[in-house]
């Protein structure tokens, strides 16, 4: 059992630029104390290389099925005719079907010991919202979820299941917040975006008593919690990978798998030959086509600015089916590693991604989530190109609740 998370900022090749306030308006940095659980703020700014996992969270990790399986994709290897060995960490085995529960149980735990009665958050495809709903049910506090409208309409089952676990779910933009109302005034048919949903969740959290906001990605403590994936994988892998692959929405699943490996490489402790590949959607190509600059993580500009690869905080991605990747920015530590060339990047169209999803499903008997299928697409292309070697990727979620993507993109 892993007992500490790994904080890569202790080992980055250069210092992580701090969050920054804009010159106009109130201090966003000061606002953090009102919206986030205290321990999460502490973790965002900790100097520790390894952060102890509280016993209660370790117990919850065990209850939800950690460690997750590491499997070899022999069927996929045969299907594409490669001698490369392909391994994947199956985070879809967790309740809720994605890696999101790793940080949800930690964040809801910290919110509860901070005295919160309700956690508030946003969700895209619903994996994060469902994870928060499950974690809140396990820990015994309320959950309020703002779900991007496009997904709210297309992912009815996730909405239903969030409600089964007791969460209160609203489509975003909504009329529950001033920001939602103003967004709807400008565009009554706004499909929603993670940026808008984050802004709504924060406003809702600030305006109510006993509420704490908890984020699904981007912030450093989220990536910290997700390193449980890579730390387990390091113990489970029978050999050093030549390539580690993951998809990127805000960066938590890619970073969760890869950071322990990258950290070892940066400190000379191993994995010298390992390459790292972050895969994103052409609908939100911040790593391949964005700018490395200070920008807001949310559309309303409520949070402090962070230096990251970004398409601009007012970017509205087209409504694709990998909703979890429809986000304008990428986490600061991941962005720095991309900027300095330690992580390679690639982006794909959803059609080629869903073809890869179908091939993986037929050869491995697991329906991947459309987000995770971006990683699979890259793994297939890389395995064919490499011809041999070892690849590890994060199958960050299953796609059993993503029938719309399979139906509409593959036209089945």
């Amino acid at each position: 059992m892993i007992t500490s998370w790994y904080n890569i900022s202790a080992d980055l090749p250069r210092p992580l630029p701090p969050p920054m306030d804009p010159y106009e308006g109130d201090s966003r940095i000061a606002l953090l104390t009102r919206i986030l659980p205290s321990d999460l703020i502490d973790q965002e700014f900790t100097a520790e290389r390894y952060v102890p996992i509280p016993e209660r969270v370790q117990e919850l990790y065990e209850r939800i099925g950690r460690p997750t399986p590491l499997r070899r994709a022999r069927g996929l290897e045969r299907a594409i005719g490669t001698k490369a060995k392909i391994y994947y960490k199956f985070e879809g085995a967790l309740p809720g079907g994605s890696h999101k529960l790793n940080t949800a149980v930690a964040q809801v735990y910290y919110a509860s010991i901070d005295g919160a009665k309700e956690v508030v958050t946003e969700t895209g495809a619903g994996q994060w919202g469902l994870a928060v709903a499950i974690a809140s049910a396990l820990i015994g506090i309320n959950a309020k979820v703002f779900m991007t409208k496009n997904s709210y309409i297309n992912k009815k089952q996730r909405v239903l299941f969030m409600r089964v676990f007791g969460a209160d779910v609203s489509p975003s933009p909504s009329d529950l917040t001033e920001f939602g109302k103003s967004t709807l005034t400008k565009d009554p048919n706004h499909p929603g975006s993670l940026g808008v949903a984050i802004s709504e969740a924060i406003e809702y959290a600030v305006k109510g008593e006993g509420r704490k906001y908890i984020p699904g990605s981007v912030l450093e403590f989220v990536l910290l919690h997700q390193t449980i994936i890579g730390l387990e994988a390091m113990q489970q892998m029978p050999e050093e990978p030549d390539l580690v692959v993951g998809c990127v929405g805000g960066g938590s699943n890619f970073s969760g798998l890869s950071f322990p490996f990258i950290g070892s490489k940066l400190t000379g402790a191993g994995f010298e030959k390992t390459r790292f590949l972050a895969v994103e959607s052409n609908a939100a190509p911040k790593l391949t086509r964005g700018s490395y600059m200070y920008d807001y993580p949310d559309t309303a500009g409520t949070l402090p600015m962070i230096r990251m690869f970004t398409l601009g905080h007012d970017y509205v991605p087209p409504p694709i089916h990998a909703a979890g990747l429809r986000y304008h920015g990428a986490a600061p530590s991941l962005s720095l590693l991309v900027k300095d060339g330690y992580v390679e990047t690639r982006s794909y169209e959803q059609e080629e991604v869903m073809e890869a999803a179908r091939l993986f499903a037929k050869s491995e008997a697991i329906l991947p989530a459309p987000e995770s299928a971006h990683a699979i697409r890259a793994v297939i292309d890389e395995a064919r190109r490499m011809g041999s070697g070892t690849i590890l990727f994060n199958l960050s979620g299953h796609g059993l609740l993503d029938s719309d993507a399979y139906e509409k993109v593959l036209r089945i």
Partner: protein
Amino acid sequence: MGLYITATYPDSATFLEVLNRTRGIVDFYEIGIPTSNPKYDGPIIRMTHFKSQLKGLEAIKIANYEKSILMGYIDDYVSSLDTVAKTAAEVGASAILFPDLLFDHFNRLNDYVVAMRRHDLRPAFFVSSKTPHRIIEKLASLEPLFIYLGLYASTGTKLPVYIERNVSIVRKLIGDTYLVTGFAVRDSSMVRALIEAGANGVVVGTAFIERMSDLGNAVEFLKELREGL
């Protein structure tokens, strides 16, 4: 204990009066070189940059600063490191601290050290709790006058961060290098906790500036803080 004040804030006469009335109460000064882009500072220190009577190096030339350091943004002096170092030496400062050096101009680290030494100044480095450990160790090996640990994300804004733990970690990384801590230092118990965790010194800025409309009260506040040492 050090006092941070931006040169010529709110005007030259008041700035000089602050130096006179606090001499002997604080051990050293950190004199801000007014800039138009104090990006990593909090709202109060930012305001002092914008409202200083003089701007840039002209502002620091109105006094002499024995046993003190200057603080500026290297963004303003990337192509004129020798000029700023020469001016610092002329006004008697011991070092120039650039909080943005490692974040925004990491590849100029060596140029900075060389420029400082050329003018008989010691390098001094600003780090945050997120600065990589081996970089902190490397900075200590460059024999700086001190390493300054910013306790929070920006000056004057306190967050629920376990700062004693972070001080203790940095202390272990830098051996006996002098460790200065600052940001949102507001009471003597915090000063005491920082020293006990391994800091050699603390700098107060925002909390003093907030009290400057009543200078007598601000000076008394410094005396109270000093009790934590």
